[in-house]
């Protein structure tokens, strides 16, 4: 902090950023300044910070997760289709046998992505205490994670979530969209994001294609600041302002995992009322092009590249029909 405080740009607030200082002055020079500052500062520390760190580490000890009989889980799996869908879509394996990691979807179809009411948040806190060792995490996917749920408790948890309107079984599916607040709420935005996400979710649900399309990440940003991380979405949607009119630019093939990739711009953008049909054209092309239902959108994209998707996207006939 001290090194940057002295070296950072003061003449232009848009350039008053660490990355600019490092870029202009060079990494070596800045690293030397930090090292020199560290050597100066170090003498002032008596070592009690290590004791504080140990105290903090103790607070993050993993919870005791005793082995539980999963009979209730298997019974619910056999009897209840909703539970099966939830357990399939929203639960992944825990490293401890007999436990799962549950994604509570805040992406009910047609609702504002990532929104929860005060009552829902209180309910989630209670459920975390009852079923997840008192732990609850907020994910970058705009969902809530219950990280330590015994499979034996999963049927009861699912019932409680469903009763609170939190049982949507769509984690990782097309309706599980990351969207920034967009022009409805944000002073920086150049286009709306939330209604686009809502329409995509309800549209593909109505088509009955959600399960068919499978795992896909759509991310929407309402301006170039990219809070929705559209550039790393399998399908990214960037809302811009073209002479006072919302215009949505599509990127394809972005990836936020260990195979990180920046999405590729497809070409001219689409108007607000054209964007959902445009996404549908891309996904119908995917369904036609994939080798098997197991091949996800991003895998098909990696195999074939952007060309066939662009062809489908800018197919004039399809556009007129839409």
């Amino acid at each position, binding site marked *: 902090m*001290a090194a940057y*405080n*002295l070296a950072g740009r*003061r003449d232009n607030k848009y350039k008053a950023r660490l990355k600019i200082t490092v870029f202009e002055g060079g990494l070596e020079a800045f690293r030397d300044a930090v090292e020199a500052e560290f050597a*100066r500062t170090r003498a*002032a*520390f*008596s*070592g*009690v*910070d290590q004791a*504080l760190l140990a105290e903090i580490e103790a607070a993050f000890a993993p919870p005791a997760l005793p082995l539980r009989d999963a009979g209730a889980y298997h019974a619910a799996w056999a009897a209840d289709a909703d539970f099966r869908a939830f357990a399939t879509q929203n639960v992944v394996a825990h490293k401890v046998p007999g436990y799962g990691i549950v994604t509570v979807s805040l992406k009910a179809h047609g609702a504002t992505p990532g929104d929860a009411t005060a009552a829902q948040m209180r309910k989630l806190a209670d459920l975390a205490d009852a079923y997840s060792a008192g732990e609850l995490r907020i994910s970058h996917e705009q969902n809530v994670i219950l990280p330590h749920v015994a499979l034996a408790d999963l049927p009861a948890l699912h019932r409680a979530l469903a009763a609170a309107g939190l049982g949507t079984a769509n984690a990782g599916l097309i309706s599980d969209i990351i969207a920034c607040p967009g022009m409805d709420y944000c002073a920086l935005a150049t286009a709306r994001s939330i209604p686009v996400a809502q329409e995509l979710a309800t549209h593909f649900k109505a088509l009955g294609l959600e399960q068919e399309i499978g795992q896909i990440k759509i991310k929407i940003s309402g301006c170039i600041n990219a809070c929705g991380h559209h550039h790393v979405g399998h399908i990214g949607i960037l809302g811009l302002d073209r002479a006072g009119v919302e215009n949505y630019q599509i990127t394809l093939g972005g990836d936020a995992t260990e195979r990180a990739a920046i999405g590729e711009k497809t070409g001219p953008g689409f108007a607000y009322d054209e964007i959902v049909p445009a996404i549908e054209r891309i996904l119908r092309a995917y369904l036609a092009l994939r080798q098997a239902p197991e091949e996800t959108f991003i895998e098909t994209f990696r195999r074939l590249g952007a060309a066939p998707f662009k062809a489908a996207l800018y197919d004039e006939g399809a556009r007129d029909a839409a």
Partner: protein
Amino acid sequence: MSVIVRDDGFHAEDWAGPVVEIAADTAPDVLVAVAQSGALLRVGFANFGDGRGFTLARRLRAQGFAGRLRAAGPLVADQYAMARRSGFDEVEIPDAIAVRQPEPQWIARANWRENTYQQRLRG
């Protein structure tokens, strides 16, 4: 004119000795010479968003300067505690700031020794 702020509130100027002015963009290496002087060191702040003076104050104290150290400029009352923690004895604010943020707002931050996370980590 200006007002001198200390832990017990507003004061008029009461320093009669020599004053050395230190601009915010002074290179820290230059400070070694003045650290031994008996003058009041007056570190200038062009605006409240320019925090270089805090780092300079810390350096001066680290180099053994034991005399009076003053932050001069349009700081805001919330920064008083940080100025004191950085090593300043007092803050000199323009009259306009003193009118906008009267004495009680500065005295409210006279508890600068409390709740300092850096102190807690240093031990």
